[in-house]
């Protein structure tokens, strides 16, 4: 009797485990966004998350081979232009293994916001990234307000509301 139940339970259990092996230590809403200090992609110098405390920051992890990034970069550029004066900034972290791939992509989709480069992948590890692209919307106090996976055409609207709301808070 019990063994009859055990078999399907074991299969269901291992399947559930299989589907969720990765989500263990991912940074989620309410957590303090881990700091990072990374070299800039297009020029010399570093970008440090800490130095943007007090602003609403959108940290966007992207790579040239990621399809939805072709949509997200231009949209984020627009959002940044719209809310910059109110204290909004976008910090992009490029994860391409080859720098030329990132540079080629930026030629096609240029952005005005700062882009950092993380070849080792320590930052996405720290954040517990589940997929590409993933972005973290961080409030003025340095806490994660939204974890945004993927990017669809309709996402800008949702982001606008969230960004505007966070900008109003002190």
């Amino acid at each position, binding site marked *: 009797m019990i063994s009859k139940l055990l078999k399907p339970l074991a299969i269901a259990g291992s*399947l559930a485990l*299989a*589907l969720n*092996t*990765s989500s263990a230590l991912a940074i989620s809403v309410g957590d303090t966004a881990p700091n990072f200090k990374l070299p800039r992609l297009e020029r010399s110098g570093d970008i440090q998350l800490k130095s943007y405390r007090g602003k609403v920051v959108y940290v966007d992890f992207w790579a040239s081979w990621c*399809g*939805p990034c*072709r*949509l997200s970069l231009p949209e984020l550029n627009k959002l940044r232009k719209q809310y910059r004066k109110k204290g909004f900034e976008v910090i992009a972290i490029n994860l391409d293994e080859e720098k030329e791939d990132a540079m080629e992509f930026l030629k096609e989709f240029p952005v005005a916001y700062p882009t950092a480069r993380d070849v080792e992948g320590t930052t996405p590890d720290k954040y517990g990234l*589940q*997929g590409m692209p993933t972005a973290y919307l961080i409030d003025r106090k340095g806490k994660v307000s939204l974890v945004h996976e*993927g990017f*669809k055409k*309709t996402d800008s609207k949702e982001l606008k509301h969230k960004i505007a709301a966070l900008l109003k808070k002190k």
Partner: protein
Amino acid sequence: MKKLSAFSALSAAALAIPTQAEVAPTDTSFSYRYTSYQEADAPRERTFTNETGRYQIDVQQFGYRTPIGESWYIASELQFETMSGASPTQTYKNNEGQSTLLMSGASIEEQRTDIKIAPKKYLDHGTVGGLFALSTENDYQSVALGIDGTLDIFAKHTTLIGSLSVSNDELSPTDPDLSTSRTEADGRKKRSFSIYEGINQVLDKYSTLQVGIGFTQLSGYLSDPYKFEDRRPDSRDQITLSAQHKQFANVLDGAALHSSYRYYYDDWGISSHTIDMKWAQQINLGRYRFIATPLVRYYTQTEADFYSLEQNPADDQLNSSDYRLSSYGAFTFGFNSELKLENWAFHFDWQQYTSRESLALFGASDDEAPALVNFSTFTAGIDYKF
């Protein structure tokens, strides 16, 4: 081509669907391909008459793929085929023990239209898709339906793949009064049921491996009504075991070795091995991206239990002298090329197929099969993506 049920094309199409279940692709694309297929003449030393010409086939393919909403994607293909030429009606051993090839007298000209539509829904951890295929020509109709799904596990390192398809074909041979086999086949049906299960595994940053098992059951009228002394069983069970490996190599602007192996076995006595290798080499020239892909394929099969070159076998006996049921081996050498520039891609592909009794690795027979075909194909195509 010979009367191919949409089912086979369907299983091919279903299996060509990429398995990674990410967000639905966002590209819309239009594609066109023109292919010219040409068979080499039959050997004059073995044909009974002067007729040595074989098939010449022109195929036009129109492809349209587009996202629908946020998580659906639809792929469709329309195919127009014009076939002309003659084909073998029988091969038999004459009194001197030499294989003699009878070719069909008249040169036929036939047209076939084929449509396939495959919608797919992208979910968080996988996909669910369907396939509808219809093929019609003046002597053969086929409808096929399929369903497929993928499931990502272990943080997208492993993808489970499954697909199921069924098809229903109807024969209506031209000039049914010309022979008893044609009369008998008129209105007869052929059904198929097929399943495939596979696992795709990401091995490391540069390579993947997919293994799979397939099972197909055919039933109904499975003989060839246009051939003489062609009486096949009314069912056929088929099994395939296959593996595909892809390996990225950092050569020039990027390259990849694609290798695959398939073992096939059925209850007609045919078993086969297929090995396929392609080297895709990318070369960037300014804004142009060029991918050159030389390829080679080796195929070997054993003969069907009821394959024989008996000129007048007993009427109640299963029999066929169709070269496709004989024991032989074949090599394909080919070269595919793709040139990409922004939204456009241009394709030029060429393939040469040569089959011979002596190339068989297992179960080679001493009998000649002069109907074994050699063919070459040339394809030109254009894609536009946006």
